[in-house]
């Protein structure tokens, strides 16, 4: 795939994710969603760059913030919206919700509401890939705060000793909820954590989809060829609160604006325009098309029925 092609496709995918997240926020503000909503606005380059390195048979685990990654992995927007709206056509018939998106056909093996819990599960998916003697690769997404959970470490060690085909993507968006990561670890780079297990690691600009993709390709290649796990720290930033309703008192408007100016969409647009691959107008059109697609998915989901209450009692075991 030429660079030209994939960057344009990547931009389109990032527009889709952005539109998906904005539509989700709309639903939330309209009171149509339960619980809390955690958006990945500003982190689209990580989702698209990293997942872009995967094949359809590969698998991912994610967090409560991971619907953008699921979308990139091929999960239907309409089915995810339906899930978030609690409808019977949702990925889990409305019984899971936004924090529990499963779409095994697409290789999306769960968003997760427990910090770091998806990492050992991903290690197990990778173990299965290895035992199957397949060349499947597993990718797991988690935040900066997750590196302080025991489960992260236990999974890192398993990945190292079993040489699992696992790519660990740490989205360092500088905060875990309202807490700056710089107060909760002593190093600047979370990639240092990988040294404890002699796992190859890299720190990349997570707002640049090109470098994310490049690093992810290398990591995936390593995993696919039996050379074991890689840890990628993607430095990024969420341009919205931890969740809808977050008053964001822990950071300055100035900081947010600096990062917005450095956001993954504007950067990719600028570079594509600069390189003469796309015009500003073409970008606008692509974005509009993405919005339209997502809004159609939203409308479709909204039209779906809720599940019968009898379904509350099924599939317990």
């Amino acid at each position, binding site marked *: 795939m030429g660079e030209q092609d994939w960057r344009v496709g990547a931009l389109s995918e990032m527009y889709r994710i952005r539109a998906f997240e904005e539509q989700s926020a709309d639903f939330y503000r309209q009171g149509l969603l*339960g*619980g809390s909503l955690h958006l990945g606005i500003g982190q689209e380059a990580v989702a698209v760059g990293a997942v872009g390195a995967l094949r359809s048979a590969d698998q991912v685990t994610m967090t409560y913030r991971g619907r953008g990654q699921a979308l990139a992995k091929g999960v239907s927007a309409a089915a995810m919206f339906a899930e978030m709206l*609690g409808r019977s056509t949702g990925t889990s018939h409305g019984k899971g919700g936004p924090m529990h998106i499963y779409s095994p056909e697409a290789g999306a093996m769960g968003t997760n509401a*427990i*910090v770091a819990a998806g990492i050992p599960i991903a290690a197990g998916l990778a173990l299965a890939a290895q035992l199957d003697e397949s060349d499947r690769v597993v990718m797991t997404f988690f935040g900066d705060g997750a590196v302080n959970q*025991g489960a992260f470490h236990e999974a890192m060690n398993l990945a190292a000793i079993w040489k699992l085909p696992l790519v660990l993507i740490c989205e360092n968006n500088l905060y*875990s909820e309202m*807490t700056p990561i710089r107060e909760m670890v002593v190093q600047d780079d979370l990639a240092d954590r990988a040294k404890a297990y002699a796992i190859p690691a890299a720190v990349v600009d997570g707002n640049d989809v090109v470098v994310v993709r490049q690093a992810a390709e290398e990591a995936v290649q390593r995993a696919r060829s039996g050379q074991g796990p890689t840890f990628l720290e993607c430095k990024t930033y969420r341009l919205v609160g931890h969740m809808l309703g977050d008053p964001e008192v822990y950071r300055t408007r100035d900081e947010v604006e600096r990062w917005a100016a450095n956001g993954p969409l504007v950067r990719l647009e600028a570079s594509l325009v600069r390189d003469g691959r796309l015009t500003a107008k073409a970008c606008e059109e692509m974005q509009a098309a993405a919005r339209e697609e997502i809004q159609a998915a939203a409308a479709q989901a909204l039209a779906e029925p*809720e599940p019968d209450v009898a379904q509350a009692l099924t599939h317990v075991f």
Partner: protein
Amino acid sequence: MPEMSYAQALNDALGQALANDPKVLVMGEDIGHHGGVFAVTKGLLERFGPKRVIDTPISESGFLGAAIGAATVGYRPVVELMWVDFAMVAMDPIVNQAAKTSYMSDGRVKVPLVIRTQQGAGRGNGAQHSQSLETMFAQVPGLKVAAPFEPADAKGMLMAAVEDDGPVIFLEHKLLYTRKGDVPGGRHVVPLGKAKVSRLGQDVTLVGLSRMVELAETAAKELSRQGVEAEVIDLRCLVPLDIETIRVSLQKTGRVVLVQEAHRSFGWAAEVSARLMEDSFDDLKAPVRRITSEDVPFPYNQRLEASVMPSVPKVVAAALSLCQDY
């Protein structure tokens, strides 16, 4: 008496505890600068500084273990677990360490630790953020388990928990934080292990814990309209369990409905039912009934969620059937 929300009452208790005893610490995720995701610890960092009000990483096993260590040498940490569901990543410090240290050292090492957390469903938070796990803690000898309903009790029981020399699991309810009530100012201590009769009646006894007391009280009003006078008991604590207050009520009413938000099987209501059978067999005019959540993880869809949870009509129906059939 000032009116306060449940969250404010808890905040008041923590402020008083920190002010009264230099050994009290408050620890947890986002509890300092941010003041807690439910605002229970708001303003405490500003008042008491970062040596008393300690923001932690997302390391529940680590900081609970650390709180135990500090407690064994005289500190009184009040640790917030943001959601009770996260206790699952930190059960070893709770079950194997905090609960057993006093016994294993024959009282030579005490663990005056409070673990505050919130639980409960009804908000569409999904299966991993809606559990009521009180019975999991209650079945571990060495832990006290408190779950206040009224704002005044939230304050008074939290102050009692902080003054207790052993570990206390203190369970708040996410849907009670905005509940308002009169709350005594200053030091206000409600001893752990005392249930409260919150409504008098002679036909049937409704027993609730935490938010389920609300359902019991509403059900009692509805029952009264139908000519049945229910006595309502707010259990307040599981350990120590005040079975006596229920027994006294049962002697009068002969009928008991237990309202438990946790899943039906193996919850606290079973223990209360078993105790009543053992201790008050002859007073039972009718079998003790349990209104509980179904034995399914909590579904996200809020209609489904409500369908598997206790409700006022379910409580009313159970009480009426006991009165009619027995």
